[in-house]
């Protein structure tokens, strides 16, 4: 095992982790902000991917990147209207209605786009490879990792440095209080929700060229996102970030050393974290 | 109503810190078997927290509690309850969606050790015992009502009934007469006291209404800012200058 190979695999892991974070960020916002366990975001991710496919056929990749997530966010907005009566109900109802929504959207995508293999046409300069440490890294891969980094930084900036970010954080930590402050929480929830969906849609658009676009795979994607969130701590974006990196690296090394076993690692990690530290690595114990 | 002289509940240096706030400060309490003890003190004195710690609803920062001599500090709440410590809460903890009858019945099922009985018919089990208790608390006519729809005073009575079904030796009550009319409050306290006599219960109750305190307690313990200031008979407490100073400005009936 050469050190260069190990380092390479580590970078693949970090890259993979960044991508996982990208996918998980949207879920994280919605779950933290709204205490809404939400099974529909895998579907939004896949919808983003499909939007990318269609839009990049009609226009080009960059327009897809711009409009795709917005389109998904619109669908998300409609969905939120459906979910509104449920914010005070028990979790089981939330779970089930988001599942129902997921089923509906997944089959909707199936009906509209069909099941043939879809390939997204990338602009040429993204479709090349570049040698790093003796291995050919696909340029697009680097693009995605960079994009994730930018988004992660942007999110951090937004939450820590802007007013709306501060309000979001307040809602996450104590919603009824924010209600009392005269802020229109209902409107903000809708914005938060749309933003979360937008992020997942964006992740879908970005990932479209390199994953198999398959509506039926939405739930699997959701579960890997959930694993990351549980490990990091459900209400913690920072936790999601580091957990994503952790899972990415473990997956990368796992696939190298334990190919049979490594598919089990995320679920096993999730179980271990839930048993030992249920609030997640970065989460806070409630009460 | 004097006790047998045995100490039924003892706390040793019980202390609870919430961060830098010391809610309960080295409380050493001794309750004699059979007595009726009131714990009084201004708001924030740590009375409810003390009861929480004794029943292990909340863990003490340090200190120990002993029930009949055995250390119950680290026992889970259900074990402490099974030892014979009953608790009524400020906000009644009932089975809101079940009937009055069923509420008491479940307590009887637990006491009668039939919790894991999956074979017998559950509807009428312990009917006699349940009716006995409903009679004692005067709620027989309401047996079929849903507990969640009862008036506040009735809910408190029901909670007393549920707790008594467990035949506890020690009953801890958190402001039993808060929120009900004076007359209802006296009814409740008389009920509790007569049941205590019947079943040789020891009673510890937190109370703000001094009428109730002086009328029904054998002894009174005063807490302030987490500390146990003094314990004495109603006359002792009435004449105690420090206690009066603590309560200066408060309504004493």
């Amino acid at each position, binding site marked *: 095992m050469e050190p260069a190979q190990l380092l390479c695999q580590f970078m693949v892991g970090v890259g993979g982790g960044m991508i996982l974070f990208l996918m998980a960020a949207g879920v994280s916002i919605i779950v933290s902000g709204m205490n809404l366990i939400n099974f529909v975001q895998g579907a939004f991710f896949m919808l983003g991917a499909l939007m990318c496919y269609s839009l990049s056929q009609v226009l080009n990749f960059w327009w897809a990147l711009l409009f795709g997530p917005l389109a998904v966010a619109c669908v998300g907005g409609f969905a939120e209207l*459906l979910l509104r*009566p449920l914010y005070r109900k028990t*979790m*089981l109802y939330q*779970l*089930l*209605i988001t*599942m*129902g*929504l*997921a*089923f*509906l959207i*997944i*089959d*909707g995508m*199936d*009906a509209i786009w069909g099941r043939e293999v879809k390939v997204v046409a990338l602009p040429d300069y993204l479709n090349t490879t570049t040698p790093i440490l003796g291995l050919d890294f696909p340029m697009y891969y680097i693009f995605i990792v960079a994009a994730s980094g930018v988004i992660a930084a942007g999110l951090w900036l937004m939450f820590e440095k802007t007013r709306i970010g501060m309000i979001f954080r307040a809602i996450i930590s104590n919603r009824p209080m924010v209600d009392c402050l005269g802020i229109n929480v209902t409107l903000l929830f809708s914005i938060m929700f749309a933003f979360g969906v937008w992020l997942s849609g964006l992740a879908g658009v970005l990932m479209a060229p390199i994953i198999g676009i398959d509506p039926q795979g939405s739930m699997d994607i959701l*579960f890997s996102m*959930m*694993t990351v969130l*549980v490990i990091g701590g459900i209400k913690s974006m920072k936790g999601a970030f580091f957990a994503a990196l952790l899972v990415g690296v473990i997956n990368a090394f796992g696939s190298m050393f334990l190919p*049979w*076993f490594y*598919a*089990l690692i995320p*679920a*096993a990690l*999730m*179980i271990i974290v*839930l*048993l030992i530290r*249920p609030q997640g690595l970065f989460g806070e114990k409630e009460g | 109503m004097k006790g047998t002289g045995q100490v039924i509940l003892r706390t040793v240096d019980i202390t609870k810190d919430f961060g830098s706030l010391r809610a309960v400060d080295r409380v050493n309490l001794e309750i004699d078997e059979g007595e009726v003890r009131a714990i009084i003190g201004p708001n924030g004195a740590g009375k409810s927290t003390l009861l929480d710690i004794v029943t292990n609803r909340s863990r003490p920062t340090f200190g120990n509690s002993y029930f009949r001599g055995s250390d119950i500090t680290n026992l*889970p709440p*259900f074990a402490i*309850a*099974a030892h014979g410590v*009953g*608790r009524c809460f400020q906000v009644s*903890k*009932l*089975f*809101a*969606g*079940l009937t009055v009858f069923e509420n008491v*019945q*479940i307590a009887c*099922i*637990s006491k009668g050790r*039939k*919790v*894991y*009985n*999956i*074979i017998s*018919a*559950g*509807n009428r089990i312990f009917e006699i015992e349940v009716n006995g208790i409903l009679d004692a608390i005067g709620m027989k006519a309401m047996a079929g009502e849903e507990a969640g729809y009862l008036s506040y005073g009735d809910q408190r009575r029901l909670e007393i009934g*549920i707790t008594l079904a*467990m035949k506890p030796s020690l009953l801890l009550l958190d402001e039993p007469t808060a929120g009900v009319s004076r007359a209802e409050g006296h009814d409740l306290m008389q009920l509790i006291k007569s049941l205590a006599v019947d079943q040789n219960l020891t009673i510890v109750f937190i109370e703000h209404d001094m009428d109730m305190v002086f009328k029904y307690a054998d002894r009174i313990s005063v807490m302030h800012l987490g500390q146990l200031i003094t314990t004495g008979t109603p006359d002792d407490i009435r004449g105690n200058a420090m206690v009066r100073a603590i309560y200066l400005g408060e309504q004493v009936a």
Partner: protein
Amino acid sequence: MVQRLIHNKPLAFGLSATVILTILAAFLPEHRSELITRMLIMALFATSINMQVGSAGMMPLGQAQFFGLGAYAFGLLCVKGGVPFPYGLFFALLISLFAGAMIGYLCLRGDSLTFALLHLAFNILLVSVAAKWISLTEGDQGFTGVPRPGLIPGDFGFYLFVLFVVLVCFILIWTIINSPFGKVMQGLRENEERIRFLGIDSKRFQLVVFTFSSLFASVSGILWAMMQRSVFNTYMSLILSAEGLMMCLIGGMSSFFGPSIGAAIVVIVGTIASTYTRQWQGLLGLIIIICVLGFRGGILGGKKSTIGL
């Protein structure tokens, strides 16, 4: 005795349904009676889920894992182990019992949200194991050759067997729910803390409920394997877990036969819709949304008692 029977609504419903179903199956063409068989097995599956839902704080998000476990245990013992039918059945149940107790113990270590997530996580884990452990489970291919009971031959005979087993299970579940144990279950659903202050170890109690519930889910899985004569890893799928929960919701979680009715609806919709469109799961999703937003408690829902019909 007969008087009591007539006045006992759910019992009367159950018995008459059984009689009607038996007669129907005798006279219906084969694929229709297979439909009823599916409905029966899924009714048992959904009812097993509802045992936990009615028992405070337990949301079994991954019940399909026990459905699949039962199927795999039975299938592997009989097909790969060459074990004769009755022993295969017995040991499959034993294995399911232990698995249920172990997984339940771990799931109950934290609070109710942790329970739900752990239940789901175990489901995900077991699905991966089933998919990857190809030497044991044949992975995505699955395996065939699962035996049916030899006593009464033919499809009608198998149907009667399923009916009998499901009936026995329903009677057992009914007995449990209407026993003192069942009363405590209701109390636990209403106020877990009060249960603890009545001297009851709520975690241990929940473990017992969980074990029963998982065992009945495993039974339904075994029956399904027999019906399909094969075992695939889709038997453990998260989609099936979700469908199980949906059956409970659609039919009503606060009544005994609610989940069964939900199961019947889901199976019928699935069977009919899948002949017309590939997107029948979407239709299911739509039904769920309507049910959650529209009815407050499902078709039979409303009154909280699990004892009424």
